[in-house]
């Protein structure tokens, strides 16, 4: 199995190839990343198919690849629940937001809100939502990156985080959205090839019969020590918490700033639509195969592989790759492990780059350009500020990841990012696009109540107070034992929007609602692709 102490040269070599290719792309993109259209939105010249790949690359994090495979390996069915939630969420995005966002917005979520609401409060509220989601998600990914590189290559945790952060910032600062998009596309292709090849190897071992894979996984999951089950309830033991998580997953994707931002990179709403469908196919195929990897790990590695799989089973997939290639110490085993490790590394880089870009756009476009400079800054100035913002945000995230250390639970923090996105961003965006009466007070109340309640509930949750997920109540209060706040904070986000709107005497700007409504449904007046 994986040796922790010394550096794995083969894995290092694969990492170097990934970095060389992505840096070449960044160099190529850097000449164009000098105005806001290119820096935030790749000139809106990405095709629907390319964007579908990039969305998949932006969305399928290391938590998806290694985390879900690990959870299925350890717990069976419950790990697969995440896959379902992450996938079905794309119906929410497609039906309710994707095309409307493309038609109504320019660079950020705040553009859509401030279209018809009072600009300053609307932008501040949207920026708060964006930054909170990006912060949780980014820190989670950085910690995940540190743990993985440490395990797979052999570098120290701190060094691993710094390497990841440095490359992430290089892509974003020098290459903007153009480099980020192509890093995401390459990563999506690599990830799909990797998981398909692994699945073929696994299925070949069970005679090509998926049912046989289920049988063998179950047989290998027997025994007193095993937590594996084909039925739910072994990992997510708290019923209400499970429902809360399910709700946060299905609505949260529609509030993730780095995903929504991708819809501004295509030329038309039609391209936005086809990119969601492309992403659905890729992401659906991917999540379907997470079962094969997880069950394969259970059937092939068995209960004996649990310790080597590490916390949350994150290393189950790389260990399985090593075993499929011929086992530890063999050339095939080492090579397969190194390739899967390289793909995991590319996966992390693509996701963190997208996150930093979305956070820096909120700071530069919404706070600096629109609020501080009141639109008087030049285009070039905004790009410079965005790059500085990306650097500052990136360094802060690296620092928190290093200080928080390996103890931070990655999949838990991703679940929280989804809960905040679903509670703060999603209600305000949906209502701004569809509810005539909606006003600024409603938007601000909704976002603040969504973010505030989610954060407060996280602070008093058992996991912060030392309880493991599913453990008996060890939170701040006897009466509260939820780890995911979604079931309370999402309704509060909507309630805040509605009550705030109704209590305020403010009348929304009718004329601007007409414009937003017609524009979002028909695309008339939407931002155009720049001509190259």
């Amino acid at each position, binding site marked *: 199995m994986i040796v922790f102490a010394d550096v794995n040269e083969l894995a290092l070599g694969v990492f170097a190839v990934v970095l060389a290719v992505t840096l070449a792309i960044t160099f190529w993109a850097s000449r164009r990343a000098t105005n806001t*259209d290119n820096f935030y939105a790749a000139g809106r010249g990405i095709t629907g198919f390319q964007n579908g790949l990039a969305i998949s690359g932006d969305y399928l994090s290391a938590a998806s690849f290694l985390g879900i495979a690990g959870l299925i390996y350890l717990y069976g069915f419950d790990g697969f629940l995440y896959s379902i939630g992450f996938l079905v969420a794309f119906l929410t995005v497609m039906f309710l937001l994707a095309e409307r966002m493309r038609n109504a917005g320019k660079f950020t979520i705040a553009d859509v809100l401030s279209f018809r609401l009072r600009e300053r409060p609307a932008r501040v509220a949207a920026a708060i939502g964006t930054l909170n989601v990006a912060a949780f998600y980014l820190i989670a990914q950085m910690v995940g990156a540190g743990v993985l590189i440490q395990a797979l290559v052999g570098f120290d945790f701190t060094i691993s985080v710094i390497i990841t952060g440095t490359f992430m910032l290089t892509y974003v600062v020098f290459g903007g959205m153009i480099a980020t998009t192509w890093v995401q596309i390459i990563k999506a292709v690599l990830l799909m090839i990797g998981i398909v090849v692994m699945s073929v190897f696994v299925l070949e071992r069970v005679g090509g019969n998926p049912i046989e894979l289920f049988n063998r996984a179950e047989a290998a999951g027997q025994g007193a020590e095993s937590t594996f089950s*084909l039925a739910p309830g072994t990992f*997510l033991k708290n019923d209400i918490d499970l429902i809360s998580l*399910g709700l946060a997953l*299905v609505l949260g994707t529609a509030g993730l700033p780095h995903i929504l931002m991708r819809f501004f990179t295509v030329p038309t709403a039609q391209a936005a639509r086809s990119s969601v469908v492309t992403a659905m196919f890729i992401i659906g195929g991917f999540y379907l195969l997470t079962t094969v990897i997880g069950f394969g790990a259970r059937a092939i590695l068995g209960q004996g592989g649990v310790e080597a799989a590490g916390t949350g089973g994150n290393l189950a997939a790389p260990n399985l790759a090593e075993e499929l290639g011929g086992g530890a110490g063999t050339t095939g085993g080492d090579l397969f492990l190194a390739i899967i490790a390289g793909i995991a590394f590319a996966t992390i880089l693509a996701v963190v780059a997208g996150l930093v870009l979305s956070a820096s756009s909120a700071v530069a476009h919404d706070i600096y350009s629109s609020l501080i400079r009141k639109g008087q800054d030049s285009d070039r100035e905004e790009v410079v500020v965005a790059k500085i913002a990306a650097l500052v945000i990136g360094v802060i995230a690296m620092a928190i990841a290093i200080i928080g250390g390996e103890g931070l639970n990655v999949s838990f923090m991703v679940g929280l990012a989804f809960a905040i996105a679903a509670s703060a961003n999603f209600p305000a965006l949906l209502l701004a696009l569809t509810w005539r009466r909606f006003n600024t007070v409603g938007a601000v109340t909704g976002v603040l109540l969504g973010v505030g309640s989610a954060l407060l509930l996280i602070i008093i949750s058992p996991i912060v107070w030392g309880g493991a997920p599913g453990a008996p109540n060890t939170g701040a209060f006897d009466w509260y034992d939820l780890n995911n706040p979604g079931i309370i904070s999402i309704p509060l986000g909507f309630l805040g929007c509605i009550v705030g709107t109704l209590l305020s005497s403010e009348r929304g700007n009718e004329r601007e609602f007409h414009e937003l409504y017609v524009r979002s449904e028909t695309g*008339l007046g939407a931002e155009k*692709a720049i001509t*190259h």
Partner: protein
Amino acid sequence: MAQDGVDDRADRAERVDWEGIEASPEFKELVRKKRGFIIPGTVFFLTWYMLFIFLCAFAQDFMGERVYEGLTVGYTLALTQFLMVLVLGLLYLSRSKNVFDPLAEKAIADYSDAGDGSGPRRRQATGAVAPTTTPEGAR
């Protein structure tokens, strides 16, 4: 860029009769047809998904029952979620191409884009001419 955006918007707001478009029969039909698909579609997928989640939370024995050897009820229902995403996604795609897009083009047929990034302008023509915008691949 923000500065350009503001000018652009004020300029466009002058030129386009948004309220008129909104009141037009074509736009009303577009919204009605879109709602007729999206609202039932959303209700359906959220219901089917949340039903699955509720069964996972409260009917764990049922979800663990066998359909065939190691294949459980839970996994079978999980596979229906994948199928649902696939079918609804393709259905929405074809509905958009065949119904929503043509209606949206009709609703804004009086306005065409000059193509210089300055936003839409009112057409001089009689309005009987079909719009020339190509949906995708405008590059």
